[in-house]
């Protein structure tokens, strides 16, 4: 009796702690655009799923593409999306719906750097509904992170809480509200298709910043492993896979020509070996879209909204051509 009372007390304490932690998570983990993105792909059917980095997020508008291709699509790209994230996002999508094509935006810099624990690490995992993909993603990625990722996923934002927003966040989650009105800032705006529109900037004031550059011999095996797994997964599940590299401003291409040329060679060969299409707007499709800085908001290659829409049209046309050629 004494022992069972002790067990009951322990269980009660653990349950109360669990409820409190869940409450804190609901109130403190912000409603990110990834929440909307994941909600969209697990609750709606799309023909095209776009995966990749911030270049894909800001340069590819699925709604514009749909006008040309006639295919519905959702943009699941985000800055900091490495091969492992893309692979498990694809797995999650395939668990919930049947996409026909995955368009994977390739930023060569992401293949020579490691995903770092810290801000944004949980962006994807936190929004995944409970699924087999989530469990595997935990085991292969989150398990090695520090325990706060599970107990306090909101810790990444702890220095930037806006107290008045806590109630709003809480209510938004309780009411399952996925409106996008708050997902905008002075420089950009999120669209329901997953596309983030960047507002034009004064390019005369643009400064060159450090960018993630590809370097020969420094490719991280784990990044390539997951890219290969993604391709194999698409093949096994009869999903078309197309790799795309978005245009880079000419000034950046010239400044780092050795890095970029080496990257194009490496990935050109890799995708050829994998037997999948690779559309590179800095090599064979160089002339298909402008590389003039006017179309971009930085020298890294993130386009402004108008340019992104124009580019999405071009991309859709190239995809159509590639498809008919196949």
């Amino acid at each position, binding site marked *: 009796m004494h022992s069972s009372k*002790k067990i009951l*007390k*322990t269980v009660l*304490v653990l349950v*109360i*702690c669990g409820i*409190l*932690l869940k409450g*804190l998570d609901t109130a403190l983990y912000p409603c990110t655009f990834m929440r909307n993105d994941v909600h969209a792909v697990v609750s709606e059917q799309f023909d095209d799923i776009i995966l990749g980095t911030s270049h894909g997020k800001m340069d590819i508008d699925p709604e514009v593409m749909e006008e040309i291709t006639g295919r519905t699509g959702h943009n699941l790209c985000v800055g900091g999306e490495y091969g492992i994230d893309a692979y498990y996002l694809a797995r999650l999508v395939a668990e919930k719906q049947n996409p026909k094509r995955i368009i994977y935006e390739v930023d060569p810099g992401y293949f020579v750097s490691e995903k*770092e*624990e*810290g*801000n944004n690490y949980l962006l994807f995992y936190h929004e995944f509904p409970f699924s087999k993909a989530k469990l595997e993603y*935990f085991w292969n990625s*989150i*398990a*090695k*992170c*520090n*325990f*706060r*990722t*599970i*107990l*306090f996923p*909101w*810790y*990444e934002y*702890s*220095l*930037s809480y806006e107290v008045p927003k806590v109630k709003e966040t809480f209510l938004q989650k309780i009411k399952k509200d996925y409106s996008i009105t708050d997902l905008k800032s002075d420089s950009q705006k999120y669209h329901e298709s997953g596309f983030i529109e960047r507002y034009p900037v004064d390019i005369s004031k643009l400064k060159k910043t450090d960018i993630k550059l590809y370097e020969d011999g420094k490719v991280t095996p784990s990044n390539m492993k997951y890219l290969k797994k993604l391709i194999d997964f698409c093949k096994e599940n009869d999903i078309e896979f197309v790799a795309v590299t978005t245009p880079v401003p000419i000034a950046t291409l010239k400044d780092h020509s050795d890095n970029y040329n080496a990257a194009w060679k490496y990935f050109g060969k890799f995708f050829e070996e994998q037997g999948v299409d690779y559309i590179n707007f800095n090599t064979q499709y160089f002339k298909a879209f402008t590389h003039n800085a006017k179309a971009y908001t930085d020298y890294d290659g993130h386009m402004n909204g108008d340019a992104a829409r124009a580019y999405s049209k071009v991309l859709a046309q190239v995809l159509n051509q590639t498809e008919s050629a196949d």
Partner: protein
Amino acid sequence: MSLVSNLFLLFVAASVLVYYIVPHKWQWLVLLVFSYIYYVAGGPRFVVFILFSTIVTWLAALMIEKMEAQENHKTARNILILGLILNFGMLGAVKYTNFAIENLNALFHMNLRGMAILLPLGISFYTFQSSGYLLDVYWKRCEAEKHPLKYALFVSFFPQILQGPIGRYSRLANQFYAPHKFEGKNIARGFERILWGFFKKMILADWAAVFVDEIFANPDQYSGLALIGILLYTLQLYADFSGGMDVVIGIASMFGIELDENFKRPFFAVSVTDFWHRWHITLGTWMKDYVFYPVTLSRWMGSFSKWAKKVFGRKTGRTLPICLANIIVFFVVGVWHGAAWKYIIYGLYNGLIIAFSGLMAGNYRSWKKKLHISGKETWYYVFTVIRTFILTVISMYFDRPDDMGVALHMMKLSVTRFNPSQILQIPAGKQGTAFTPYALLILAVGCVILFVVSVLQERGMKIRESLAKLPLPVTVAVYFCLLVSIGFFGSTAVARGFIYAQF
């Protein structure tokens, strides 16, 4: 597998569960299996080293005992020497080969190529632990363990393998192999201790590291912060290492195993000798038992003592050998810390101060008498604590920078430039400079909490026992707040491993 990772905590939970489910007589085997799983997860190829150390010392101990039983002391001694050479030889080969090559190249203008050697996990710790066992068997302080697997557990016990504490066979054997009944209070006490360790690591050490790394990477850019940088590094090192120890000791206590304490509020030390009785205690006692005493009692030291008495008189002649033994001990401490001159200088600095204090002890006593200081005055206690703290902080100049040049440069900057406001230019990790004041505030409050807890402990208060006497909801609330505070206030910069895990 980092001590703060989800995987490690799941691993601990699984090991505790299995440990208490299996029949008591198999508990030690569960620990051994989990210890080797842990070790293999850290790098399968490193298992060879720990196996080598285990087999060599286990066999050598058995043979020593057998030879001693046959009164064959000379062979026993030779086996001991061989065992120690093999054990330390392996450590030397993997840890110091490249250091030796670098120095040979520099000294003789040679062009020897360094080797790509990865340091096996915990090698400095388990080498010392198993060598200590071998010496204990030789000195008949303990009996040799007959069962190879039981001995393997002593060498590889997973919570302590990465960063200590360096255990003694006589203290641990009975605990490892004795049956342990499940007791909720062991789990609770372990959990409390782990929580306190995480608090120190994530709130204090990791935030301090954000500033320390920037200051030491760019000493000229942050020239006005050299002094603050070294103070923050002192905090980081203490919180990191002692926090890691709290986690390790907490995990062990979940298995009903009580490891030796490695820290006892070192910044309340009244002398550098006292500091080393409170800081990395198990390394200090290892050095005392296995280096200091053997050196002091050695034949050549006896001769030196005789010579010193003749030349310097009875009093100084008696002190000098002890001073020399201290310098040797701290030279070894420096070498143990790493293959770099900065560590050797760090060790020698401590050794020289302790030696100098030994030589001056008589003078200090007479000065105190003349100044009517009994030594019990509060102001004198505070003075000695601050004096020791300053001497300790100076040693950190040799410990943290990449090389001696930077160390000396930082020392110079510390006394010639001081501009604390520069700290606001350092970004609080990825959150940027806008959040720097918050990070500093968190550090300040964290330090106050650590200080208050340390003062209470120094006064003999048993905080956890006092908390346990409170009503359960209050105790749970206190620990829950501590847990959640790690979420709210822990460093948001890129996660860092424990500093001593690399030794």
